[in-house]
């Protein structure tokens, strides 16, 4: 629309073009203009850097020692001379006088222009922490920065890179290759989160760690430490300190807009330009990272090349259709790591994920399809098809015809016809073609197994082991089943959820066998079909990992339901209820006073005795939870886990201490049992009761584990359930001492913890596996109880850590605090929550 007006020619017959910024966009724009009309302008370029124009993106290979500066020069001094360009380098422009049409440099040089081009790029963003100005704190933007890093690397020592994005990781890679002990500090939980999803970010982190870098994610820098004005380390907000001889800040960039802003041009985040790269002043153009076009500021070179072409068209008086914005893609320039990302992978309505994982090769591919078009792609480990996907994406091509084969890549998908149909492709394989790489099973063997009667995926897996390990050949086995049996294929036992072809049991077994210790590790190794699981498999995996690797696995809070995340039960009005543990239902006047004080102080709207023999305080605000917990902790009380898939309560009756019928100390045993079992995470909630005689006042026969005391000892009952489907317990065994009762209790819980499916209470679990199987596993081998109990006690070491105490001490404070408060009247005021 706004093609630049034609200005009268300059005195020398040429218009005077002044360029501010001797970088990638500025020089490319000049090249494009010269290519169109070499005689139109008398050109002067100002550059703040004291050197000719070079390829900034290759600074990474220079740092890594793979290239030298000479290798990356784009335009030598000769080029400027040949084209009669005046280069004023090492002298930045300090102001623009639009009325006089001149620019003024730091050294006092005043240069008149007819046409001005601003191409000032970006400034690295420096996080405003104490110590940011110490010597040894550098950014990664130009050759001087690289020289500083190389000088530091000469003496060895250690480097900290703040920022785990593209730039930070390339800096870290270079410093690591140069022999420095390198640590990357990244605020977010996954690396390169703008370009990679959780799965790919995890693979990348694992690989960088394997190469010797230390990667700290979810790490927030509090301060840069120094001595004698020189950096010595970094302290994180959680108190950790990391020694450093050099700190590289690579947390982001900001368009360099100061000059334009001061000259009164329209500037938001970047300098505003129209589709012909014209600013709000028709004599001034702008290009590169410093501009904002249709709301977007770019930080990669590909869009700049597009901008430079339209700019040149307009600058020589032949404006074309103009710039319509660019779709960008990312690669990481770290040798040996193949990674590609393009487009939008945020998902949303109508988006469908297609995921392929190859556990053996460490590859992960995900494409996102919407309305039959490819809208995003994330590739790790195998990026051969990156440019093909990117092309489909940019051209918004209709992919419905190749949809089935899309994820297998171009060679497969464009094979067309027979090959695009996975079944036909499998049919075309020879009998000795290998189907399952993990277990070395050929197509012939799989077919023989099917013909011998295996008519489900599960049967094939168990009989010939094909697809029983990582599962990446599941699709092939399924194709063979449907080729051989057509509609006769039987579906196997239920898979965990739609994200996987494995059942709960298979997943649990493989977590242990393959020593998988993180959710993304399970998803990669077992070739999950979705990028990051769903609301049903994430909590399950979190539990399975916690159960398999006590003390090692780090709980994933975002994979927990709100009640478990907030350690309180959410109520219909969004407030919470708080239930402190009351061991065996026994309390003291001091505890009751503390509860009463807390109820007053935090204005509990209801104080109720629960069906689980303890007290519930209702109507507590999420902001007040850490406070009320601190008060209850101070009186010796801990979380009652009334919200958890965990041990809830141990109900007791008064027993032999007081009751005229009591046969044993049921209250005492109940308290001991609760002390032993509290804090334990389980597949579902777990309730215990101990009754002092068969009158059973503690209702022990509808509990997950119930004890009925009798004269001769203790009857142990399991698998009871109140709730919608009432189920009375089964008698498990009878023992004579309290210790035996406690041992069997611990062993039974551990068996349940290790074998039940997530969200399966003991009642349905026992109905599924049978009481006999539970008994056999506990009692056939005389050592079984001791072994299971030992595993339970080992895990309890880590679980019996009151979550309320940790929160009261400030852990995860952001879950309880408002972000800020907005008070529009009378003055605009934002108070940031205490950080």
């Amino acid at each position, binding site marked *: 629309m706004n093609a630049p007006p034609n200005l009268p020619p300059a005195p020398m017959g040429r218009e005077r073009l002044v360029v501010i910024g001797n970088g990638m966009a500025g020089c490319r724009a000049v090249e494009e203009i010269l290519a169109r009309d070499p005689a139109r302008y008398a050109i002067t370029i100002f550059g703040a850097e004291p050197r000719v124009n070079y390829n900034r993106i290759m600074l990474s290979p220079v740092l890594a020692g793979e290239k030298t500066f000479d290798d990356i020069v784009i335009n030598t001094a000769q080029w400027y001379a040949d084209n009669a360009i005046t280069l004023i380098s090492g002298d930045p422009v300090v102001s623009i006088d639009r009325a006089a049409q001149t620019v003024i440099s730091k050294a006092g040089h005043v240069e008149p222009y007819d046409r001005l081009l601003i191409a000032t790029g970006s400034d690295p963003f420096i996080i405003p922490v104490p110590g940011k100005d110490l010597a040894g704190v550098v950014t990664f933007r130009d050759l001087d920065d690289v020289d500083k890093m190389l000088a530091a690397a000469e003496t060895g020592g250690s480097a900290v890179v703040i920022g785990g994005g593209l730039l930070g990781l390339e800096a870290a890679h270079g410093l690591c290759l140069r022999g420095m002990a390198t640590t990357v500090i990244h605020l*977010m*939980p996954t690396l390169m989160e703008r370009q990679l999803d959780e799965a790919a970010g995890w693979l990348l982190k694992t690989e960088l760690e394997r190469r010797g870098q230390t990667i700290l994610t979810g790490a927030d820098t509090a301060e840069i430490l120094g001595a004698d004005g020189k950096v010595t380390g970094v302290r994180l907000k959680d108190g950790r300190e990391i020694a450093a001889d050099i700190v590289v800040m690579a947390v982001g960039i900001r368009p360099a807009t100061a000059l334009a802003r001061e000259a009164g041009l329209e500037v938001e985040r970047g300098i505003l330009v129209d589709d012909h790269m014209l600013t709000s002043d028709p004599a001034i153009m702008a290009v590169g990272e410093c501009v904002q076009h249709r709301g977007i500021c770019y930080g990669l070179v590909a869009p700049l090349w597009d901008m430079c072409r339209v700019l040149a068209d307009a600058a020589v008086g032949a404006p074309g259709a103009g710039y319509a914005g660019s779709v960008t893609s990312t690669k990481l320039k770290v040798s040996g790591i193949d990674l590609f990302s393009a487009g939008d992978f*945020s998902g949303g309505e109508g*988006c469908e994920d297609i995921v392929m994982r190859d556990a053996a090769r460490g590859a992960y591919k995900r494409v996102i399809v919407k309305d039959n078009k490819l809208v995003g792609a994330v590739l790790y480990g195998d990026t051969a098809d990156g440019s093909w996907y990117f092309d489909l994406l940019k051209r918004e091509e209709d992919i419905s015809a190749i949809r089935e084969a899309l994820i297998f890549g171009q060679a497969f998908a464009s094979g067309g016809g027979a090959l695009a149909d996975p079944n036909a492709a499998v049919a075309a394989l020879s009998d000795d073609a290998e189907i399952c790489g993990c277990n070395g099973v050929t197509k012939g063997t799989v077919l023989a197994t099917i013909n011998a009667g295996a008519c489900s995926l599960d049967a094939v897996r168990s009989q010939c082991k094909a697809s029983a390990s990582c599962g990446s050949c599941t699709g092939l086995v399924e194709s063979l089943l449907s080729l051989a049996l057509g509609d006769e294929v039987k579906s196997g036992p239920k898979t965990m959820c739609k994200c996987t072809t494995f059942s709960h049991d298979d997943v649990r077994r493989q977590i242990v066998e393959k020593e998988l210790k993180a959710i993304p590790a399970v998803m990669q190794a077992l070739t999950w079909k979705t990028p990051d699981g769903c*609301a049903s498999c994430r909590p399950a995996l979190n539990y399975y990992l916690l159960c398999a690797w006590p003390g090692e696995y780090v709980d994933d809070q975002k994979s927990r339901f*709100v009640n478990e995340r907030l350690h309180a039960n959410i109520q219909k009005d969004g407030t919470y209820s708080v239930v402190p543990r009351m061991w065996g239902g026994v309390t003291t006047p001091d505890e009751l006073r503390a509860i009463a004080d807390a109820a007053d102080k935090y204005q509990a709207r209801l104080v109720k005795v629960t069906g689980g023999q303890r007290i519930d305080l209702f109507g507590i605000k999420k902001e007040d939870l850490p406070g009320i917990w601190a008060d209850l902790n101070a009186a010796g009380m801990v979380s009652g886990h009334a919200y958890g898939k965990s041990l809830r309560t141990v109900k007791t009756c008064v027993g032999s201490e007081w009751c005229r019928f009591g046969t044993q100390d049921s209250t005492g045993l109940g308290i001991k049992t609760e002390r032993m079992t509290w804090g334990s995470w389980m597949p579902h909630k777990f309730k215990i009761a101990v009754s002092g005689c068969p009158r059973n006042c503690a209702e022990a026969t509808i509990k997950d584990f119930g004890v009925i005391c009798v004269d001769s000892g203790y009857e142990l009952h399991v698998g009871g359930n109140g709730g919608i489907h009432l189920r009375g317990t089964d008698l498990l065994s009878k023992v004579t001492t309290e210790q035996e009762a406690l041992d069997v209790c611990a062993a039974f819980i551990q068996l349940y913890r290790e074998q039940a499916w997530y969200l399966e209470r003991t009642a349905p679990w026992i109905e599924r596996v049978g009481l006999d199987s539970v008994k056999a596993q506990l009692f056939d081998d005389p050592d079984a109880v001791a072994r299971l109990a030992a595993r339970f006690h080992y895990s309890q070491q880590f679980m019996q850590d009151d979550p309320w105490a940790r929160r009261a001490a400030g852990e995860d404070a952001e879950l309880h605090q408002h972000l800020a408060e907005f008070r*529009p009247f009378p003055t605009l005021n934002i108070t940031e929550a205490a950080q």
Partner: protein
Amino acid sequence: MIGEWIDIGPTGQISPGNARTLPVQGGEEIAIFHTMDHQFYALVNKCPHKHGPLSQGIVHGTEVTCPLHSWKISLKTGEAQGDDKGCVPTIPIRVDAGRLYLLRSALMAARAPQVAA
């Protein structure tokens, strides 16, 4: 979108998969979500069903499951998904240089939906 953008602080204050709240004096409390894929969304913190606090739900993709009765609400449109009907106002949000900005006019105009009968 033209208008005044209010800076509500650094993105790092909300970890992915979580949400945090912003009470507005004289207006509705706003929930600001950070998805696992690192997008930010802002909605009135009241479920169209029975005003459940959406900020406390599990975030998956670009939806949140309400913690009270598990309606699924689109973070992009505020619309209830599936067979449920209802919509909660969204507030335009922008990320710039690691900070979050909300559109002031929308922040003040947002009103909670009527509770479903």
